[in-house]
Protein backbone atom coordinates (compact mmCIF):
# COMPACT_ATOMS: atom_id res chain seq x y z
CA UNK A 1 0.00 0.00 0.00
CA UNK A 2 1.12 3.52 -0.59
CA UNK A 3 -0.98 6.08 1.21
CA UNK A 4 1.58 8.82 0.96
CA UNK A 5 0.35 12.26 0.00
CA UNK A 6 2.56 15.21 -0.83
CA UNK A 7 1.78 17.51 2.08
CA UNK A 8 -0.85 18.78 4.49
CA UNK A 9 -2.72 20.77 1.81
CA UNK A 10 -3.26 17.62 -0.23
CA UNK A 11 -4.10 15.56 2.86
CA UNK A 12 -6.94 17.86 3.96
CA UNK A 13 -8.15 19.02 0.55
CA UNK A 14 -11.57 17.32 0.79
CA UNK A 15 -12.41 18.52 4.32
CA UNK A 16 -15.53 20.60 3.74
CA UNK A 17 -17.35 23.25 5.76
CA UNK A 18 -19.31 21.82 8.73
CA UNK A 19 -17.24 18.65 8.89
CA UNK A 20 -16.61 16.92 12.24
CA UNK A 21 -12.90 16.41 12.80
CA UNK A 22 -10.85 14.83 15.55
CA UNK A 23 -7.48 16.35 16.33
CA UNK A 24 -4.91 14.45 18.38
CA UNK A 25 -2.73 15.98 21.08
CA UNK A 26 -2.67 16.86 24.77
CA UNK A 27 -2.18 20.58 25.21
CA UNK A 28 0.35 21.42 22.49
CA UNK A 29 2.03 18.02 22.82
CA UNK A 30 1.53 15.74 19.82
CA UNK A 31 -0.74 18.06 17.83
CA UNK A 32 -0.95 17.88 14.01
CA UNK A 33 0.71 21.25 13.41
CA UNK A 34 0.96 20.96 9.61
CA UNK A 35 -2.68 20.04 9.10
CA UNK A 36 -3.88 22.84 11.41
CA UNK A 37 -1.89 25.33 9.35
CA UNK A 38 -3.36 23.85 6.16
CA UNK A 39 -6.92 24.06 7.52
CA UNK A 40 -6.37 27.73 8.35
CA UNK A 41 -5.03 28.31 4.82
CA UNK A 42 -7.97 26.48 3.22
CA UNK A 43 -10.39 28.54 5.30
CA UNK A 44 -12.87 25.73 5.84
CA UNK A 45 -15.58 26.90 8.26
CA UNK A 46 -18.23 25.69 10.70
CA UNK A 47 -16.06 22.83 11.97
CA UNK A 48 -16.90 20.65 14.92
CA UNK A 49 -13.58 19.79 16.56
CA UNK A 50 -13.13 16.86 18.93
CA UNK A 51 -9.87 17.44 20.77
CA UNK A 52 -8.82 17.19 24.40
CA UNK A 53 -7.81 20.86 24.46
CA UNK A 54 -8.29 23.91 22.27
CA UNK A 55 -4.72 25.13 21.88
CA UNK A 56 -3.41 28.50 23.04
CA UNK A 57 -4.10 31.93 21.58
CA UNK A 58 -1.58 31.80 18.76
CA UNK A 59 -0.90 28.10 18.33
CA UNK A 60 -2.64 24.79 17.82
CA UNK A 61 -6.42 24.90 17.48
CA UNK A 62 -6.16 28.49 18.73
CA UNK A 63 -5.12 29.40 15.17
CA UNK A 64 -8.44 28.08 13.83
CA UNK A 65 -10.34 29.93 16.54
CA UNK A 66 -8.68 33.21 15.56
CA UNK A 67 -10.04 32.74 12.03
CA UNK A 68 -13.52 31.77 13.35
CA UNK A 69 -13.42 28.38 11.66
CA UNK A 70 -14.68 26.39 14.61
CA UNK A 71 -18.41 26.15 15.32
CA UNK A 72 -18.19 23.67 18.16
CA UNK A 73 -15.47 22.27 20.43
CA UNK A 74 -15.81 18.95 22.23
CA UNK A 75 -13.01 18.88 24.82
CA UNK A 76 -12.19 18.03 28.43
CA UNK A 77 -10.17 21.13 29.30
CA UNK A 78 -9.96 24.45 27.49
CA UNK A 79 -8.34 26.80 29.96
CA UNK A 80 -5.38 28.25 28.10
CA UNK A 81 -6.94 30.43 25.45
CA UNK A 82 -8.31 34.00 25.71
CA UNK A 83 -9.90 34.09 22.25
CA UNK A 84 -11.59 30.80 23.05
CA UNK A 85 -13.00 32.32 26.23
CA UNK A 86 -14.24 35.40 24.38
CA UNK A 87 -16.01 33.34 21.68
CA UNK A 88 -17.48 30.98 24.27
CA UNK A 89 -18.86 33.79 26.45
CA UNK A 90 -20.27 35.68 23.42
CA UNK A 91 -22.01 32.53 22.21
CA UNK A 92 -20.11 32.41 18.89
CA UNK A 93 -18.58 29.10 19.87
CA UNK A 94 -20.47 26.11 21.16
CA UNK A 95 -18.53 24.14 23.78
CA UNK A 96 -19.23 20.66 25.08
CA UNK A 97 -17.03 19.72 28.03
CA UNK A 98 -16.75 16.01 28.74
CA UNK A 99 -14.55 13.98 31.09
CA UNK A 100 -11.13 13.18 29.63
CA UNK A 101 -11.48 9.42 30.02
CA UNK A 102 -14.92 9.57 28.42
CA UNK A 103 -13.44 11.49 25.48
CA UNK A 104 -10.69 8.90 25.04
CA UNK A 105 -13.03 5.95 25.38
CA UNK A 106 -15.65 7.36 22.97
CA UNK A 107 -12.84 7.49 20.38
CA UNK A 108 -11.78 3.98 21.31
CA UNK A 109 -15.34 2.68 20.96
CA UNK A 110 -15.54 4.09 17.42
CA UNK A 111 -12.25 2.41 16.48
CA UNK A 112 -13.34 -0.88 18.03
CA UNK A 113 -16.73 -0.87 16.30
CA UNK A 114 -18.74 -0.55 19.50
CA UNK A 115 -21.68 1.87 19.48
CA UNK A 116 -21.43 2.83 23.13
CA UNK A 117 -19.56 2.35 26.37
CA UNK A 118 -20.48 2.52 30.06
CA UNK A 119 -18.43 4.68 32.38
CA UNK A 120 -18.85 5.84 35.99
CA UNK A 121 -17.34 9.25 35.16
CA UNK A 122 -19.90 12.00 35.63
CA UNK A 123 -22.53 9.98 37.54
CA UNK A 124 -24.43 12.35 39.82
CA UNK A 125 -23.06 15.44 38.04
CA UNK A 126 -24.38 17.68 35.26
CA UNK A 127 -22.53 15.47 32.76
CA UNK A 128 -25.17 12.79 33.43
CA UNK A 129 -28.13 15.00 32.50
CA UNK A 130 -30.17 13.44 29.71
CA UNK A 131 -28.04 10.32 29.53
CA UNK A 132 -29.15 6.74 29.89
CA UNK A 133 -27.63 5.05 32.93
CA UNK A 134 -27.45 1.50 34.13
CA UNK A 135 -26.34 -0.26 37.30
CA UNK A 136 -23.79 -3.05 37.29
CA UNK A 137 -22.24 -5.06 40.11
CA UNK A 138 -18.59 -4.08 40.59
CA UNK A 139 -16.52 -5.91 43.19
CA UNK A 140 -19.71 -6.98 44.92
CA UNK A 141 -21.25 -3.50 45.05
CA UNK A 142 -23.93 -2.09 42.78
CA UNK A 143 -22.59 0.93 40.94
CA UNK A 144 -24.12 3.31 38.42
CA UNK A 145 -22.65 3.89 34.97
CA UNK A 146 -23.48 6.33 32.17
CA UNK A 147 -23.92 5.18 28.62
CA UNK A 148 -21.69 7.26 26.35
CA UNK A 149 -21.86 7.00 22.57
CA UNK A 150 -18.97 6.30 20.23
CA UNK A 151 -17.91 9.40 18.32
CA UNK A 152 -18.84 9.72 14.67
CA UNK A 153 -16.16 11.84 13.02
CA UNK A 154 -15.69 12.53 9.31
CA UNK A 155 -11.95 12.96 9.68
CA UNK A 156 -9.33 12.17 12.30
CA UNK A 157 -6.09 14.11 12.08
CA UNK A 158 -3.21 12.73 14.10
CA UNK A 159 0.48 13.37 14.59
CA UNK A 160 3.01 10.54 14.98
CA UNK A 161 6.75 10.37 15.36
CA UNK A 162 7.44 7.83 12.63
CA UNK A 163 5.30 6.31 9.94
CA UNK A 164 5.60 4.36 6.71
CA UNK A 165 3.68 4.44 3.40
CA UNK A 166 1.34 1.68 4.67
CA UNK A 167 0.19 4.10 7.35
CA UNK A 168 1.81 2.22 10.22
CA UNK A 169 2.51 4.66 13.06
CA UNK A 170 4.83 4.93 16.03
CA UNK A 171 4.35 7.68 18.59
CA UNK A 172 6.90 9.16 20.97
CA UNK A 173 6.65 9.59 24.75
CA UNK A 174 3.59 11.50 25.97
CA UNK A 175 2.99 12.87 22.46
CA UNK A 176 1.08 9.61 21.98
CA UNK A 177 -1.92 10.65 24.17
CA UNK A 178 -5.15 10.77 22.09
CA UNK A 179 -3.51 10.13 18.73
CA UNK A 180 -3.77 6.31 18.52
CA UNK A 181 -7.45 6.09 19.42
CA UNK A 182 -8.39 9.03 17.22
CA UNK A 183 -6.48 7.41 14.36
CA UNK A 184 -8.76 4.40 14.78
CA UNK A 185 -11.93 6.48 14.97
CA UNK A 186 -12.01 8.63 11.83
CA UNK A 187 -13.95 7.68 8.71
CA UNK A 188 -10.89 9.11 7.02
CA UNK A 189 -7.70 9.29 9.04
CA UNK A 190 -4.86 11.62 8.13
CA UNK A 191 -1.50 11.10 9.78
CA UNK A 192 1.34 13.60 9.72
CA UNK A 193 4.68 12.26 10.89
CA UNK A 194 8.03 13.73 11.78
CA UNK A 195 9.76 11.02 9.82
CA UNK A 196 8.28 9.01 6.95
CA UNK A 197 10.41 5.92 6.52
CA UNK A 198 10.43 3.37 3.66
CA UNK A 199 7.90 0.52 3.82
CA UNK A 200 9.34 -2.43 5.67
CA UNK A 201 11.77 -0.47 7.79
CA UNK A 202 9.61 -0.20 10.92
CA UNK A 203 9.77 -3.15 13.31
CA UNK A 204 6.28 -4.73 13.17
CA UNK A 205 6.52 -5.45 16.89
CA UNK A 206 6.87 -1.75 17.65
CA UNK A 207 3.91 -0.40 15.65
CA UNK A 208 1.37 1.47 17.83
CA UNK A 209 -1.25 2.06 15.11
CA UNK A 210 -1.51 -0.49 12.28
CA UNK A 211 -1.79 1.10 8.85
CA UNK A 212 -5.31 -0.25 8.21
CA UNK A 213 -6.64 2.66 10.26
CA UNK A 214 -4.73 5.32 8.32
CA UNK A 215 -5.83 6.57 4.91
CA UNK A 216 -3.31 9.33 4.17
CA UNK A 217 0.17 9.93 5.47
CA UNK A 218 2.83 12.57 4.87
CA UNK A 219 6.03 13.83 6.40
CA UNK A 220 5.39 17.14 8.08
CA UNK A 221 7.73 20.10 7.94
CA UNK A 222 8.93 22.86 10.27
CA UNK A 223 7.65 21.36 13.51
CA UNK A 224 7.68 23.90 16.32
CA UNK A 225 6.63 21.45 19.05
CA UNK A 226 6.01 24.31 21.45
CA UNK A 227 6.25 23.78 25.18
CA UNK A 228 3.25 25.12 27.11
CA UNK A 229 4.75 25.08 30.63
CA UNK A 230 8.52 25.02 30.67
CA UNK A 231 9.47 23.70 34.11
CA UNK A 232 13.07 22.92 35.02
CA UNK A 233 15.21 22.25 38.09
CA UNK A 234 18.62 23.52 39.03
CA UNK A 235 21.63 21.33 38.48
Amino acid at each position, binding site marked *: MNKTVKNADEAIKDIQDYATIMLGGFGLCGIPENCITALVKKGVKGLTCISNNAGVDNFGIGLMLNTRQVKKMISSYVGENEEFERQMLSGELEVELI*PQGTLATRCLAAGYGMPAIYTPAGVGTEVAIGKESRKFMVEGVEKEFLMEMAFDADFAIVKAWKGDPHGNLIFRETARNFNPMMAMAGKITIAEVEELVPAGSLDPDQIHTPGIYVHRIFQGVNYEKRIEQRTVRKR
Partner: protein
Amino acid sequence: MLTRCHFQINPFSNFQISMLDKIGIAKRIAKEIKDGYYVNLGIGIPTLVANYIPKGMNVVLQSENGLLGMGPFPFEGEEDSDLINAGKQTITTVPGSAFFDSAMSFGMIRSRKVNLTILGAMEVSENGDIANWKIPGKMVKGMGGAMDLVASAKNIIVAMQHVNKAGESKLLPNCDLPLTGIRCVKKIVTELAVLDVTPEGFKLLERAPGVTVDEIIKATLGRLIVEGDIPEMVID
Protein backbone atom coordinates in the same frame (compact mmCIF):
# COMPACT_ATOMS: atom_id res chain seq x y z
CA MET B 1 8.49 -2.17 41.00
CA LEU B 2 11.59 -0.53 39.68
CA THR B 3 11.32 3.09 40.56
CA ARG B 4 12.11 5.26 43.47
CA CYS B 5 10.75 8.74 43.70
CA HIS B 6 12.39 11.16 45.98
CA PHE B 7 12.85 14.31 44.07
CA GLN B 8 11.97 17.96 44.12
CA ILE B 9 9.10 19.46 42.19
CA ASN B 10 9.05 23.23 41.98
CA PRO B 11 7.16 24.47 45.04
CA PHE B 12 6.77 28.01 43.72
CA SER B 13 3.32 27.66 42.19
CA ASN B 14 0.20 29.66 42.94
CA PHE B 15 -1.35 29.18 46.35
CA GLN B 16 -3.18 31.37 48.77
CA ILE B 17 -1.97 29.61 51.86
CA SER B 18 1.50 30.04 53.27
CA MET B 19 4.43 27.90 52.22
CA LEU B 20 4.55 26.19 55.57
CA ASP B 21 0.90 25.23 55.34
CA LYS B 22 0.96 23.73 51.89
CA ILE B 23 4.21 21.93 52.48
CA GLY B 24 2.83 20.69 55.79
CA ILE B 25 -0.28 19.39 54.05
CA ALA B 26 1.87 17.70 51.40
CA LYS B 27 4.12 16.15 54.08
CA ARG B 28 1.15 14.81 56.01
CA ILE B 29 -0.45 13.32 52.90
CA ALA B 30 2.85 11.68 51.94
CA LYS B 31 2.43 9.55 55.09
CA GLU B 32 -0.65 7.96 53.50
CA ILE B 33 1.39 6.55 50.64
CA LYS B 34 2.41 2.93 51.05
CA ASP B 35 5.19 0.88 49.53
CA GLY B 36 4.15 -0.53 46.16
CA TYR B 37 1.52 2.12 45.43
CA TYR B 38 0.68 3.52 42.03
CA VAL B 39 -0.39 7.11 42.70
CA ASN B 40 -2.04 9.84 40.64
CA LEU B 41 -1.27 13.34 41.89
CA GLY B 42 -3.47 16.26 40.87
CA ILE B 43 -2.25 19.77 40.17
CA GLY B 44 -1.28 22.04 43.10
CA ILE B 45 -0.58 20.77 46.63
CA PRO B 46 -0.92 17.14 45.47
CA THR B 47 2.03 17.64 43.11
CA LEU B 48 4.18 18.64 46.09
CA VAL B 49 3.47 15.33 47.81
CA ALA B 50 6.00 13.71 45.43
CA ASN B 51 8.77 15.58 47.27
CA TYR B 52 7.98 13.91 50.62
CA ILE B 53 7.52 10.26 49.70
CA PRO B 54 9.76 8.47 52.22
CA LYS B 55 13.17 7.45 50.95
CA GLY B 56 13.46 3.84 49.96
CA MET B 57 9.74 3.45 49.31
CA ASN B 58 8.79 2.08 45.90
CA VAL B 59 6.08 4.30 44.49
CA VAL B 60 5.16 4.89 40.84
CA LEU B 61 3.51 8.15 39.83
CA GLN B 62 0.88 8.00 37.10
CA SER B 63 0.35 10.98 34.83
CA GLU B 64 -3.00 10.59 33.09
CA ASN B 65 -1.73 11.95 29.77
CA GLY B 66 0.08 8.64 29.36
CA LEU B 67 2.97 7.88 31.69
CA LEU B 68 3.75 5.60 34.60
CA GLY B 69 6.99 6.50 36.33
CA MET B 70 6.94 10.29 36.28
CA GLY B 71 10.21 11.86 37.41
CA PRO B 72 11.22 15.36 38.44
CA PHE B 73 11.42 18.43 36.22
CA PRO B 74 14.28 18.23 33.70
CA PHE B 75 17.53 20.10 34.14
CA GLU B 76 17.60 23.36 32.25
CA GLY B 77 18.37 22.68 28.59
CA GLU B 78 17.11 19.10 28.78
CA GLU B 79 13.41 19.87 28.31
CA ASP B 80 11.67 17.57 25.84
CA SER B 81 8.48 18.90 24.24
CA ASP B 82 7.19 15.34 23.83
CA LEU B 83 7.46 14.67 27.55
CA ILE B 84 4.94 16.52 29.74
CA ASN B 85 2.66 15.81 32.68
CA ALA B 86 -1.09 16.34 32.92
CA GLY B 87 -0.43 19.96 33.93
CA LYS B 88 1.45 20.37 30.62
CA GLN B 89 4.74 20.91 32.49
CA THR B 90 7.97 19.47 31.14
CA ILE B 91 9.02 16.43 33.18
CA THR B 92 11.33 13.43 33.05
CA THR B 93 10.87 9.70 33.46
CA VAL B 94 12.41 7.45 36.07
CA PRO B 95 13.98 4.07 35.23
CA GLY B 96 11.27 1.48 34.55
CA SER B 97 8.71 3.96 33.27
CA ALA B 98 6.13 3.21 30.56
CA PHE B 99 4.21 5.32 28.05
CA PHE B 100 0.68 4.55 26.87
CA ASP B 101 -2.27 6.26 25.22
CA SER B 102 -5.08 8.18 26.90
CA ALA B 103 -7.63 5.36 26.60
CA MET B 104 -5.33 2.93 28.40
CA SER B 105 -4.51 5.60 30.96
CA PHE B 106 -8.13 5.95 31.97
CA GLY B 107 -8.52 2.20 31.63
CA MET B 108 -6.02 1.67 34.46
CA ILE B 109 -7.81 4.36 36.47
CA ARG B 110 -11.28 2.91 35.84
CA SER B 111 -10.20 -0.66 36.58
CA ARG B 112 -8.70 0.52 39.90
CA LYS B 113 -5.10 -0.38 39.20
CA VAL B 114 -4.13 3.07 40.47
CA ASN B 115 -4.07 2.70 44.27
CA LEU B 116 -4.39 6.30 45.38
CA THR B 117 -5.60 9.57 43.91
CA ILE B 118 -4.70 12.83 45.60
CA LEU B 119 -6.43 15.96 44.38
CA GLY B 120 -7.54 19.43 45.35
CA ALA B 121 -11.13 20.55 45.91
CA MET B 122 -13.28 23.65 46.26
CA GLU B 123 -15.85 21.84 48.42
CA VAL B 124 -16.36 18.42 49.98
CA SER B 125 -19.62 17.29 51.55
CA GLU B 126 -20.05 15.14 54.65
CA ASN B 127 -21.04 12.16 52.46
CA GLY B 128 -17.89 12.45 50.34
CA ASP B 129 -19.22 14.40 47.33
CA ILE B 130 -16.58 16.62 45.75
CA ALA B 131 -16.81 19.85 43.74
CA ASN B 132 -13.64 21.03 42.08
CA TRP B 133 -14.23 21.93 38.44
CA LYS B 134 -16.74 24.70 37.95
CA ILE B 135 -17.83 27.96 39.54
CA PRO B 136 -21.09 29.28 38.04
CA GLY B 137 -20.58 32.72 36.52
CA LYS B 138 -16.87 32.20 36.00
CA MET B 139 -15.07 30.93 32.93
CA VAL B 140 -15.35 27.15 32.96
CA LYS B 141 -12.17 25.47 31.87
CA GLY B 142 -13.39 21.91 32.07
CA MET B 143 -13.14 18.86 34.24
CA GLY B 144 -10.13 17.32 32.48
CA GLY B 145 -9.64 13.88 34.01
CA ALA B 146 -11.03 14.76 37.45
CA MET B 147 -14.47 13.18 36.94
CA ASP B 148 -12.94 9.93 35.72
CA LEU B 149 -10.50 9.83 38.62
CA VAL B 150 -13.03 10.48 41.37
CA ALA B 151 -15.61 8.11 39.89
CA SER B 152 -13.22 5.19 39.86
CA ALA B 153 -10.42 5.55 42.39
CA LYS B 154 -10.34 3.14 45.33
CA ASN B 155 -8.86 5.71 47.63
CA ILE B 156 -9.21 9.45 47.21
CA ILE B 157 -7.49 11.95 49.47
CA VAL B 158 -8.36 15.61 49.13
CA ALA B 159 -5.73 18.24 49.85
CA MET B 160 -7.30 21.62 50.42
CA GLN B 161 -7.76 24.62 52.68
CA HIS B 162 -10.36 24.18 55.39
CA VAL B 163 -12.02 27.52 54.63
CA ASN B 164 -12.17 29.62 51.45
CA LYS B 165 -10.85 33.15 50.96
CA ALA B 166 -14.13 34.57 52.31
CA GLY B 167 -13.63 32.55 55.50
CA GLU B 168 -16.42 30.08 54.68
CA SER B 169 -16.06 26.40 55.42
CA LYS B 170 -15.28 24.13 52.48
CA LEU B 171 -16.39 21.05 54.47
CA LEU B 172 -20.15 21.22 54.04
CA PRO B 173 -23.37 19.26 54.65
CA ASN B 174 -23.89 19.43 50.86
CA CYS B 175 -21.76 20.93 48.10
CA ASP B 176 -23.13 24.18 46.68
CA LEU B 177 -20.94 24.12 43.58
CA PRO B 178 -21.53 21.77 40.62
CA LEU B 179 -20.31 18.30 41.54
CA THR B 180 -17.30 16.48 40.13
CA GLY B 181 -18.25 13.17 41.72
CA ILE B 182 -20.46 11.69 44.41
CA ARG B 183 -19.69 9.73 47.60
CA CYS B 184 -16.06 9.24 46.66
CA VAL B 185 -13.72 11.19 48.99
CA LYS B 186 -12.22 9.02 51.73
CA LYS B 187 -9.90 11.39 53.54
CA ILE B 188 -9.24 15.15 53.73
CA VAL B 189 -6.06 16.87 54.82
CA THR B 190 -6.29 20.63 55.42
CA GLU B 191 -4.09 23.21 57.11
CA LEU B 192 -6.11 22.54 60.29
CA ALA B 193 -6.88 18.84 60.39
CA VAL B 194 -6.95 15.30 59.04
CA LEU B 195 -10.47 13.94 58.65
CA ASP B 196 -12.01 10.72 57.38
CA VAL B 197 -15.28 10.74 55.50
CA THR B 198 -17.52 8.18 57.22
CA PRO B 199 -21.19 7.21 56.77
CA GLU B 200 -21.91 9.44 59.80
CA GLY B 201 -20.01 12.48 58.50
CA PHE B 202 -16.53 13.97 58.82
CA LYS B 203 -14.55 12.23 61.52
CA LEU B 204 -11.75 14.25 63.07
CA LEU B 205 -8.56 12.18 63.25
CA GLU B 206 -5.75 14.65 63.86
CA ARG B 207 -5.29 18.37 64.34
CA ALA B 208 -2.48 20.49 62.95
CA PRO B 209 0.22 21.59 65.39
CA GLY B 210 -1.09 24.41 67.57
CA VAL B 211 -4.68 24.13 66.30
CA THR B 212 -7.44 23.43 68.82
CA VAL B 213 -10.42 21.14 68.34
CA ASP B 214 -12.67 24.19 68.83
CA GLU B 215 -11.03 25.96 65.92
CA ILE B 216 -11.66 22.93 63.71
CA ILE B 217 -15.29 22.71 64.86
CA LYS B 218 -15.77 26.40 64.00
CA ALA B 219 -14.25 25.92 60.54
CA THR B 220 -16.36 22.86 59.70
CA LEU B 221 -19.95 23.38 58.56
CA GLY B 222 -20.74 19.74 57.76
CA ARG B 223 -21.41 17.17 60.46
CA LEU B 224 -18.21 16.63 62.45
CA ILE B 225 -17.56 13.69 64.71
CA VAL B 226 -15.08 14.32 67.52
CA GLU B 227 -14.37 11.31 69.71
CA GLY B 228 -11.93 11.34 72.62
CA ASP B 229 -8.58 13.10 72.55
CA ILE B 230 -7.59 14.25 69.09
CA PRO B 231 -3.85 13.86 68.59
CA GLU B 232 -1.64 16.41 66.93
CA MET B 233 -0.36 15.57 63.44
CA VAL B 234 3.17 14.27 63.36
CA ILE B 235 5.06 15.96 60.55
CA ASP B 236 8.76 15.39 60.16
